[in-house]
Every structure is written in C-alpha cells, then in structure tokens.
C-alpha cells in the first residue's frame, strides 16, 4: 500500500460547537473513497473541519497531515452570488488555462452552456453540481465533502451519487465523505468509518462483490453491522 495522503494521529478537539473528538487515528490512501458515518453530534463534522483547517477557535491536540491540494464541498453549495457560474468554478484557481478548465469542469457536471448564468437561476441540485465542479477543477488529492447531498431531494440525490461515482473514477482523488446516510455510504465508499462520541468505533471495508446475489447479501450484512454501531436495531431501520 502506498503512503497515505491523510494521516491523523491522536486528534483531540474540545469545546467546539458541533461536537468533540477524543483521540482519532485515521489514514486515507491515495484515491481511496472513505465515508465517515455518525449520528448528529458524533463529531464527524468536527473531524472534517479539523482536516480542512477551518476550526480556528477549537482547542485540542494531535497530528494532521493533509495534502496541499485539498477541496471542500459543503452541505450548501456556497456559490458566490455575485459571480457567474464559470467565475464561481474558477474562483481562486491560478492557472493560465483556468477558464478552459472551468468550462470543461462545468461540462463534466452536465452544465455546459450555463457558464454565464447567475447562481440564483439554478436549482439546489444544479448549484451543488457547480460546487462539485469547483472542487474538482483544482484536481485535488483530497476531496472533503460535508453531507453534500443532505439538502437535496431523493431523486436529485440518486443522480448526484452517480455523478460523484463517475467523477471520482475519472479524477481519482482521495475522498472523505461525511454522511449520516448508511445506504449512501455503502453505495459510494470503498471503506466506511463510524464515529461515535468523538472516537472511531468501526472501520469496515465496503467490498461489494460483482455477483448480484452476493452483492445484495454483502450490502445487507454491512448495513446491519453499521446500523448496530450507530445504535439502530434492524427492526427500527426496516420500519
């Protein structure tokens, strides 16, 4: 296995608004898609913000090694309302061919020809696709995503899942996807990490076989395992 792109040792965060971390160790390999599952307040957003170095006020200790080229996708698209789509995509991108790359990135997310639209003209799902284009145009080694599909409707979410799968196969960044959706995690990730009370309680390979029957069985198995760690009984989950 090659050297990890993310290496976290003994990460402690206290007195943050969203939750605490009580000593987290985590490695992420290049190109690996890791889903970070946890209940509300489990500290999963705190961990992501620590990795993104956005937690200026937090107190704590520990080591975090992350690559220089890092992008974040938030739950809200966070487009700058005063910039047209193309300018939003290439915001902060310093490259001679930035506009051309931005155009291609918009094309990749299915928004070719919308370069000159304003953010307010887009639906929530379209805005989130622009945010995805903006993060990928930088060719990040690590993509951090904080519940990026949380605000989308179920149908849009399915389309976004497919888009993320396709694009992460093309660009192949390491991905850390924060989510509370077990099925989303199984569907997208190579590996699923469960966080509870600021500590990692499970680290499961989401290795789904090709064979459709075995695929379903393994999915159900992982699902039950994850729900157990999240404190949900299967009967409750089936509803």
């Amino acid at each position, binding site marked *: 296995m090659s050297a990890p792109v993310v290496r976290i040792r003994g990460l402690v965060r206290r007195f943050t608004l969203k939750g605490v971390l009580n000593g987290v160790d985590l490695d992420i390999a290049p190109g690996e898609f890791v889903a970070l599952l946890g209940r509300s307040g489990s500290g999963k957003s705190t961990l992501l913000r620590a990795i993104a170095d956005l937690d200026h006020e937090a107190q704590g200790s520990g080591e975090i090694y992350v690559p220089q080229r890092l992008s974040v996708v938030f739950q809200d698209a966070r487009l700058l309302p005063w910039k047209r789509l193309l300018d939003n995509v290439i915001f*902060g991108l310093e490259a001679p061919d930035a506009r051309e790359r931005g155009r291609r990135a918009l094309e990749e997310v299915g928004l070719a020809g919308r370069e000159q639209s304003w953010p307010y003209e887009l639906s929530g799902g379209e805005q989130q696709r622009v945010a995805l284009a903006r993060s990928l145009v930088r060719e990040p080694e690590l993509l951090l995503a904080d519940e990026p599909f949380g605000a989308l409707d179920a149908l849009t979410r399915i389309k976004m899942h497919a888009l993320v799968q396709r694009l992460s196969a093309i660009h192949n960044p390491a991905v850390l996807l924060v989510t509370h959706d077990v099925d989303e995690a199984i569907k997208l990730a190579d590996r699923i990490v469960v966080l509870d009370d600021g500590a990692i309680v499970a680290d499961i390979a989401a290795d789904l076989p090709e064979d459709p029957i075995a695929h379903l069985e393994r999915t159900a198995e992982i699902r039950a395992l994850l729900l157990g760690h999240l404190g949900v009984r299967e009967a409750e989950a089936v509803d």
Partner: protein
Amino acid sequence: MTVRSAEILRPPFPIAPNPLAKNSREEQAPSFVAEFPSTQLLVRGTRRLGMGDAVSYGWLLGPALLLVYWSLGSATGFIDGRILPAPWVAVTTGVDLIEQGRLQQHLLVSLLRAAQGIAFGTVAGVLVALLSGLSLLGGYIFDGIIQVKRAVPALALIPFFILWFGIGEVMKVTVVTLGVFIPIYIHTHNALRSIDIKHVELAETMGIRYSQFIRHVVLPGALPGFLLGLRFGVMGAWLGLVVVEQFNTTSGIGYMINLARNYAQADVMLVGLVLYAVFGLLSDRLVRSIESRSLTWRRTLAQ
C-alpha cells in the same frame, strides 16, 4: 379574505381523474370540463406578495403629484403667494436669474463643491471602513472616533473649521466631505462586518491570497451596503452645502438664498430651494441606477 375572482368554484373531490380507472372516466371527462372551465380550475388564487414589473419613470409620480398640488393651490389662491410663490414664479425668476448670469455662476460653484465633497468623502469613507471593518485593531481605533464625530453636528464644527482651515474653499469642501464620509463609512463598515462567514470559509479552503479575498469576496459582498451608504452620502453632500454656504461665502446656491433672505426676495429663495430639491432627486436616481446595474446578481422583492 381576499379573493381574486368573484366566482371561485371549488371542484368536488377527486379533482384529478384516476388514471387507473381510465375507461370509465373517459365518458365523464367532457362533462367535468364543461362544469369547470379551465380558467376556473385553478381556484386557489395565490396572492402575489411581490410587487410586479417596474414602470419606467414611475419614480416621478410622487414629485409630479406634489407639483400638481402646489400649482392648483397657487392658481386657486388656496396657497398665498406671499407665503409660498407659485411654481411658475420659480420658473420665471429662474429664467431672469439665468439671463443676468447669476444663477449658472452660483450653481457651478455649488456643484463643484458637492462633487469634490462626494469624491473625497467616498474615497475616505471606503478606505477607513476597510481599515476599521476588516481588522479588530482598526475597528478599535477608528470606529469610536467616527461615532464621536457623528455625535457632533456639522453646524457646531464650522467655527472650528474656520479657525483651522480659514474661510475659503478648503473649509467648505471639508464640511461637505464629512457629510458624505460618515454615512458611507457607517454602511460600508456594517456591510463588511456582515459578510457571510460561509463565504469566508470557502475562501479559506481555496487557499487564496488576502488581496484576492478582498477583491472577490469582501468588496462585492459589501457593495450593496456601500451603495446604500452612497445614497445617504450624496444627500449628505447637499445638506452640507446648505449649511456651509450660509457662512462667509460670496457664491453658491446657499449664498444666493441667504442674500435673497436679506432682501425678502421669496421668489429667489424659492429658486434655490427648487434647485436643491431637483439636484437631490436626480443624484439619488443616479446612485439607484448604478445600484440596479451593479447588483444584477441579486433577486429581491423589487425585481
């Protein structure tokens, strides 16, 4: 309760025919449509809370109504000409003054003072707002001083300004500049401090330089606030002009009014007032048109 149509009909349930029971419904469909013409099928009549489309020059309506009221009052004698001369008196007096060459001379001087004050006040207001709005130390230093200035009326400062700057143009332009500076500072500072933390975080994750952060996030984000400040600032310039041209001047619209007061020339005073009003209104329209051109990215009630 507000209803849009007098004849609102509520169709009995089910409103939509069941697609599964297609055959049996097909025969009923025509009578259903006949009973409820398509224009009345949508009966909820959501009340539009927005304002609809703007009318060009609609902003002239209020001032025009005021002018009509004034004209009618003067023509019927309801408004005594000795108390307030008729609008056409302002026009004929204005023409006389122009023929004598006095009006344009005073107007030019006043406009120059206003333009200088607006230019200096805007630049200073934005610069100090940036220093004060984007750094804690800057805020601690400048904000208090500016609140002190706000509390002291310009009228009370003028004697000191005369001591410091003399009675020439410098003193006058300084007073006008302060009248512009204060509102621009207040609104720009407020807009800077209200920039969405989410946009700041985004910029942080991009790893951009501070100058780029200012250019792409801070300045456009604070633009609506600045433009509001500019509207107040432009009005502040005219107010400053009225005040300062009462002191030790030999030119300007304010001087003209002052002189006319000494000779009880109500018509000349009126010309001065009308000019202030017209220029105030026009400059406000100018700033608003800049506003609507530069803020096309916004969707608000008025658009």
